[in-house]
């Protein structure tokens, strides 16, 4: 048993593999932190290079990119409030709030450390419990996925502290916008006004970039606020204090657990994992009120989740030959080209290779930790760039990035429209996160709902009959109702406050 494990370690520790991981990590940091450049795109760009490499080197390169891409996305989310990848969007909430308070260093440090924690947690699950987790993940059919997505959507209420009505309006608007395009079941065009571009629907990446980046740029240029907080020449602390990290252990465990689990479910995806773990961490935290105003917990939860998604997504890929997300789909393609066929036979026929994947994943996470931590000073330095230089650069990156997604200016237009919308929303106090959630989850919600009904041949009881879906739906109903009940209680306790509250 231990023979192949250690010879796999020696395989991975060849100098060319270490170099490959390093290159992958550096490339991933660049891809991840640039809005519009996705990890999938980075993988495809590197893929031709892997054809002529040994399988282990190829895996090292791609896993390095995967691990650091997730972290890289958070760097721009924390520093500039512009998530580089969709999975970093929850990090922006507390991460950017910390930057505004002048604590960009600790926020980044925590993000990197919890990313590492999440990655390692995912790896442990991957290496110890793969077959079991894969079995459970396969039980997630359409009704279960529908219930999971529904649960994710109820988080809209959690982001409406100021006004639940405004949060709901923002969310529903997002849901309505996402119905444009070809109907996911029958392929009938809806709200396309004869435009073929609209047939493909609104893709959520340009929408996300628009929602986050454009209002930042407009606010910055109108000189109303300093969007990029002034940063003293001295960066006080970069590494989070050890005792802070110990306090974050529970939060990181929650995030990593949710991330691994959701990553393993084919078709669920990283963004839903980060929002669920952010919300769950808040609900179980003692200082849940501080979430949103810049807490380390609010950074640690989604960050440990998004890197754990990577480990989780590898589980069905290696054990069943089914990718858990689009990125592992490309990884699967790379392995198949290498002549390896993932699935149960891989563990029997090429056990040593499977161990190499585990070691490579460990190495990728370690390298990501070291390289990112040692360059934080550099990243934070971005904040020293004057706003009048930085903002046009960001705008250029946004335009180029959205164009590059599908090589069309239609997406750039979508980004700008969402940007103006988000600016107006900010001005009138509508939160944008509910809209982002709706944009990410809306199409999935519809797809899984209708698929379930096709499978059940129109019988809505399918959601109640499946135990997993029933549990999720109950949680969803609970989290929707509980703020209302809490509000009631508050009203009866304090009548005066109620009167002040009503005009809202």
């Amino acid at each position, binding site marked *: 048993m231990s023979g192949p494990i250690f010879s796999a370690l020696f395989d991975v520790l060849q100098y060319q593999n270490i170099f490959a991981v390093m290159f992958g990590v550096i490339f991933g940091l660049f891809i991840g932190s640039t809005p519009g450049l996705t990890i999938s795109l980075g993988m495809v760009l590197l893929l031709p290079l892997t054809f002529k490499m040994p399988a282990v080197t190829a895996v090292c390169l791609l896993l390095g990119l995967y691990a650091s891409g997730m972290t890289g996305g958070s760097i721009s989310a924390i520093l500039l409030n512009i998530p580089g990848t969709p999975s970093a969007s929850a990090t922006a909430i507390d991460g950017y709030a910390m930057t505004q308070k002048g604590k960009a260093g600790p926020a980044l440090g925590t993000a990197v450390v919890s990313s590492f924690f999440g990655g390692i947690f995912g790896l442990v699950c991957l290496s110890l419990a793969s077959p079991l987790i894969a079995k459970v993940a396969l039980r997630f059919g359409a009704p279960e996925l529908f219930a999971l997505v529904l649960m994710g959507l109820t988080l809209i209420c959690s982001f409406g502290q100021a006004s639940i009505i405004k949060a709901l309006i923002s969310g529903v608007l997002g849901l309505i916008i996402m119905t444009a395009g070809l109907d996911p079941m029958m392929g009938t065009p809806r709200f396309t006004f004869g435009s073929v571009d609209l047939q493909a629907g609104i893709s959520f990446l340009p929408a996300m970039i628009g929602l986050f980046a454009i209002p930042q740029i407009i606010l910055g240029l109108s000189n109303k606020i300093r969007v990029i907080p002034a940063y003293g020449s001295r960066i006080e602390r970069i590494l989070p204090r050890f005792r802070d990290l110990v306090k974050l252990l529970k939060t990181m465990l929650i995030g990593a657990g949710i991330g691994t689990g959701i990553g393993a479910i084919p078709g669920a995806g990283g963004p839903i994992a980060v929002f669920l773990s952010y919300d769950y961490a808040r609900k179980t935290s003692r200082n849940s009120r501080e979430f949103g105003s810049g807490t380390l917990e609010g950074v640690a939860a989604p960050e440990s989740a998004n890197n754990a998604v990577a480990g989780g997504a590898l589980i069905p890929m290696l054990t069943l030959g*089914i990718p858990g997300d689009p990125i592992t789909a490309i990884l699967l393609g790379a392995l198949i080209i290498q002549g390896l*066929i993932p699935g149960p036979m891989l563990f029997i026929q090429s056990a040593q290779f499977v161990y190499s994947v585990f070691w490579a994943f460990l190495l990728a996470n370690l390298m990501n930790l070291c390289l990112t931590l040692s360059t934080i000073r550099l990243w934070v330095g971005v904040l020293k760039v004057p706003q009048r230089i930085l903002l046009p650069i960001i705008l250029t990156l946004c335009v180029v990035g959205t164009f590059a997604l599908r090589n069309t200016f239609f997406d750039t237009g979508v980004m700008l429209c969402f940007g103006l919308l988000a600016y107006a929303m900010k001005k009138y106090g509508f939160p944008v996160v509910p809209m982002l959630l709706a944009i990410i989850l809306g199409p999935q919600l519809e797809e899984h709902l209708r698929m379930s009904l096709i499978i059940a041949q129109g019988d809505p009881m399918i959601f109640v009959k499946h135990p997993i879906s029933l549990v999720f739906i109950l949680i969803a109903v609970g989290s929707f109702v509980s703020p209302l009940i809490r509000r009631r209680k508050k009203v009866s306790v304090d009548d005066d406050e109620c009167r002040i509250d009503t005009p809202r």
Partner: protein
Amino acid sequence: MKKRNLSYLIIVALTIVFSMGFMPQVSMAEYPTKPVSFLIPFGVGGSADLMGRALAAGAKDTLGQPIVPINRPGAGGGIMYTALNASKADGYSVGWNSTSILTTTNIGNVPFKYTDFENVCRIGYTAMPIAVREDAPWNTLKELIAYAKNNPGKIKIGNAGTGSGTHLTAVMLEKVTDIQVVHVPLGAKRRVPSCLGGEVQVICVPLPEAAPQCLGGQMRLLAVSTANRDPKFPEVPTMKELGYPVVMDLFRGISVPKGTPQNVIQKLVVAFEKGSQDEGFKKIADKKGFNISFQGHDAFEAYLIEQNKNVVESLKLGGLIK
């Protein structure tokens, strides 16, 4: 100082001489004089993308210019075909087509037909098999059909999306055997997991998508949709030889806008034929279970007429068009 002036003079003179030398060549230059855009109808990382990129890399030396892959995913291929249809017919926009060029244009979401393109050549095709989980009670397609006959509406067949080639294959099978099944448009992401998880008992997928699970012993193939047996799975019968007249290929080839000059088309045929024999492309095609089977311009157009008949018929049978 003087020396330097002299050297400037020489450089200027040389530049003039060289540019004059090149000038006639430029004005009489033949296609292609600049990089060619290669439009891929699906997203990065999928089968169409990986094979398209390898093919482009293999064809560029023969063509003499870089072939730049550009993904235009969306609307089941409709986005790419629309973009291609609107491009100049100068041979600098080349589309990497698939069976989707027939399905999208017939369903009527785009205002043109496959005949509004010059269909340059076919690179090859793959089968769309009927697959079940390893522990499914049916050993042959006949047994499955017999079960479905006795239990109308009980069998659920997953496919890649309504109106896709896999859906149409299942519809054809349903109609020619006179059974009643539920078609579940699982989409590309969930078709295989859904079958492994037991949500649907049967799936119809492009062969490459199910091949890893079949080789790994988690799934079994009952029949393939192509006219001949698949070289990778020679023991699996075709639907035709089992007595069900269903023949549907998932083909891939090259299309350009209508009106592209014949000499340009001929150059593309030569370049892509060479590309289909490129080692890098052959390797990926082999791993993806894609049969390289080249057809030139005329043969491909004739093949499309026949395939289009099948597609139109099954769309009508499935009630997707009138």
